[in-house]
Every structure is written in structure tokens, then in C-alpha cells.
């Protein structure tokens, strides 16, 4: 096997007639240049031009993208929303924690106005959520602000720069939670979890995890 070619940022790899650009490269004036220091990979797709990309072994910093399923930990709750730290994107752990918000009306799909965040999440819960958007458009923001009384603690800057998450699906919601006694709770229904030690039930918005992901 011929040794893989290494390249540094700015190296001219080939022209756009020979290959299509993949990850870690950029196009300029009809040529493909590398944008990373790494190994050049040329993949043959079949009927189209081969895809050229530059890879490094260190995991690429994955940023939560719109529509991605993320695993996060609840840090604080508020009658309007819950603040979370995003820990995993899909199954890759993030090196730095990003912050996200789950608004009251994004907690579940039905009866959005009757949701109480205290009965859906608690600080310390691990939640599966989906990224909605990270850039609230001005019109959406103004509309959203008019639909609820603006509380003093929300600042515009705060809202705009967080990742907005939603758990409004059956498969999204709390996966791991600890009861007030400290034991890990077992889900009983879509809105309740029970502590195995004290047998008290607590309200949470529980995720319906697919059976194949549950350990026996």
C-alpha cells in the first residue's frame, strides 16, 4: 500500500476537474486546497468523481447541528425554561460543554401551555433532546416575547446565543434521573418515574428508549 500523503493547510491538492471536495478542504479558483494538517484521503464513490478530503486522527470538533439528537444534563430550571449543558452529540462526547435551553413549550408536543418545568425536569437529570435552532430570528423572537410576559431575568443576548432544544417527541426526554433520596429512578410511565428505595413517584417527562438500547 503506497504511503498516505500528508499535507499542511494551504497545500494545493488537485483541480476540481479531478476530484470533488470533501471535509478539511476548500475550493479556490478551480483548485482544491487543504485546510487541515493531516492525511489526504481519496475515496472513489463510483459513478462520480472521487471525493478528496483531509483527515486528522484527533476527533473533529463536532458542533451541535440543527436536527441533531444531543444528550445533555439539566443545570437549572425556571418556570419558563430549563437550562442544560450539552454533553454528547449523537454518540460522540464533546470536549467543551455547550449550553442549551429547553423552553416550556418545547417540552412536549401536547398541552404545551399546561407544562410545568418542575414536573418535567430537575437539575442533574440526563436528557435526550433535539436541536431546534441556534439563531432566533428577530421576528420569531419578538413574537415569542409577546406570547409570554417578559420576565426580568431573560436577556435578549442570553436567548439568542444558546442552543434551543426540544423534547417534544416520544423518544426524547429524561433518561436518567435521581430521586430526592439519591437512588436512580425507574420509569413508570411517560410522565412518572419511581424511586426503587423509597417507592415514591416523581414527575418527569420520560423518554421512551427503544428496547434494543436498554440493558437487560
Amino acid at each position: 500500500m503506497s504511503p498516505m500523503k500528508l499535507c499542511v493547510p494551504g497545500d494545493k491538492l488537485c483541480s476540481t476537474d479531478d476530484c470533488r471536495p470533501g471535509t478539511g478542504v476548500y475550493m479556490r479558483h478551480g483548485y482544491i486546497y487543504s485546510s487541515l494538517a493531516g492525511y489526504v484521503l481519496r475515496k472513489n464513490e463510483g459513478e462520480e468523481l472521487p471525493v478528496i478530503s483531509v483527515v486528522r486522527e484527533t476527533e473533529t470538533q463536532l458542533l451541535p447541528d440543527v436536527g441533531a439528537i444531543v444528550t445533555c444534563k439539566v443545570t437549572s430550571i425556571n418556570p419558563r425554561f430549563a437550562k442544560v449543558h450539552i454533553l454528547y452529540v449523537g454518540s460522540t462526547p464533546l470536549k467543551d460543554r455547550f449550553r442549551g435551553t429547553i423552553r416550556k413549550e418545547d417540552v412536549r408536543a401536547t398541552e404545551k401551555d399546561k407544562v410545568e418545568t418542575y414536573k418535567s425536569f430537575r437539575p442533574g437529570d440526563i436528557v435526550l433532546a433535539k436541536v431546534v435552532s441556534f439563531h432566533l430570528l428577530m421576528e420569531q423572537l419578538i413574537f415569542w416575547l409577546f406570547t409570554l410576559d417578559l420576565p426580568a431575568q431573560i436577556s435578549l443576548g442570553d436567548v439568542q446565543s444558546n442552543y434551543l432544544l426540544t423534547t417534544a417527541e416520544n423518544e426524547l426526554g429524561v433518561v436518567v434521573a435521581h430521586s430526592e433520596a439519591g437512588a436512580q429512578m425507574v420509569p413508570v410511565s411517560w410522565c412518572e418515574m419511581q424511586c426503587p428505595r423509597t417507592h415514591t413517584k416523581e414527575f418527569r417527562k420520560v423518554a421512551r428508549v427503544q428496547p434494543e438500547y436498554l440493558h437487560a
Partner: protein
Amino acid sequence: MPTDTKRVRGPEVSQSLSRFVCKPETTLPSDGTRTDGRSRDQVDVRPVFVRCGLVSQAKGSAYIEAGNTKLICCVYGPKETERKDETDMKCGRLFADMRFAPFSCPERGSWIQGSHEKDLSLMVLESLQPAVCLHKYPRSQIDINVMVLENNGSALAHAITCASLALADAGIEMYDLVLGCSIRQDGASYLIDPTFLEESGSCWGSGENQGSLTVSFLPSLNQISGLQSDGEMGEGTLTAGVRTCIEGCYKLYPVIQQALVKAVRGAAPPPSES
């Protein structure tokens, strides 16, 4: 007023340490040659030693040595941006910080960043910003910290090179590497990659064309991303100086490329062909 009993006070009569220290050369040789054997008016940059990936805690790091000038740079990020008052979140931000260690210059400095260091940090930021693909890192910030361990001339130029190497080592997408080079114009002749003495020597002639110039250059794209000049130079001299610096950058390019390649190869084996 209560006496201070906790502090150890020195002797009543004391003399400054600097009277006993043998002073290094403060004057340049009078015949115009350079102290380290390089020649004037030629693109004779100091040989460089570069290594990447030294600091394990940082995402990427680089160490550069040119003559006695030693710099280390660490890159952290991309991480979530702390500033929440930005309305445009479509691209990331770069933060550059350049500091001189107190032991780096002949005169002991302080740990607190002075205005000169802030100026240099801004210059590093300005030089690197066009090279990084910031649109690929929305709402994130990348921190670059350069520390000068020993300053023997053209610290800024080497800081820019070191910072771009550290960025490449961190796996941050860039359009091209940024290389820095500086010259000192002395009348009709120039000195490339000046040492500390040559940069700040007090025995300079007072004629025309006395100044220094630092250029940061993107070799593959053939673009200049930063230019800083001090002193008074004619237009022709300045343009010639810029061209000389670009030549100096091209001389550095293969060494930098090799160092990066070595770092990538050492970091991980090549991925298997799928």
C-alpha cells in the same frame, strides 16, 4: 506608626546589582558586519527550530527557536463563546494574547501585560484572522496564547509563525499557514531577522531610511495579512523591504511544513484505506 516587624529589611547601605553584572554588548561592530556572522543586504534568516504538540493540556501548541529568540504558543478551542452580546453568531472569534516573560528581555519586565504587549497581541490577531476558516466554527471562540521565553529580536514575526503552527496543530481549519518575517532598515542596507541589539540598538545612524518592518504572509495564497512598520522609510525602500520579507518567509516555509508533517505523523498512524 507601628513598625513593620514581619518584613525582612536589607542592609541600610546597598548597591544596585546592575553595577556588578557584566553588561552584554550594547554597541554594534563598527565595520557594519553583523555579530552572528550573517551578512547584510541578503535574505539570511536565522536557522529555525520548530516543534509542535509540546503542551499536552492545550488543543494545539508549537515551539519556535530562532537564534536565541524562543517562543511557545498554545491554542485552546473552539469552545463556546463567553461574550453574549454579539448579534452576529454566524462565525467564530479569535482571541490572541501575547506576553513576554519577565526574564525574556535584558531588563526584567513584569507579568502584567503592558501596552506594547497589547499592541503586539492585536497585531497577531490581525495577522491570523484572515487565515482561519472562522465560518466553520459558529458561536465559538478560539484562544491563542503566545509566550515569549527569550526575546532576541523579531519576536512578533516569530510569534505569528508560531501561532499559525499551533492553530494547524490544533486541527483548526485554515486557508493557509501564516509566516512572519521582519527586517531592520539601516540607511541604504537592511538586516533581515534582526537580533535584539540590532532592533533596538542606540547607535543607529540618523540618516534617512531608519526603521523596522514586520510582514506576515500567506505563502500558498500569496497574500499579506499583516504589516507593521516603525520609523521613517521612503516609499521605494518600504516596498523593497516588503519584498525582502516575503522572500524571507518563503525561506522559512519548507521548515515549517516539515515540522507540521512530522507532528501529524507522530501524533497518529495513517487511517486505513476503506
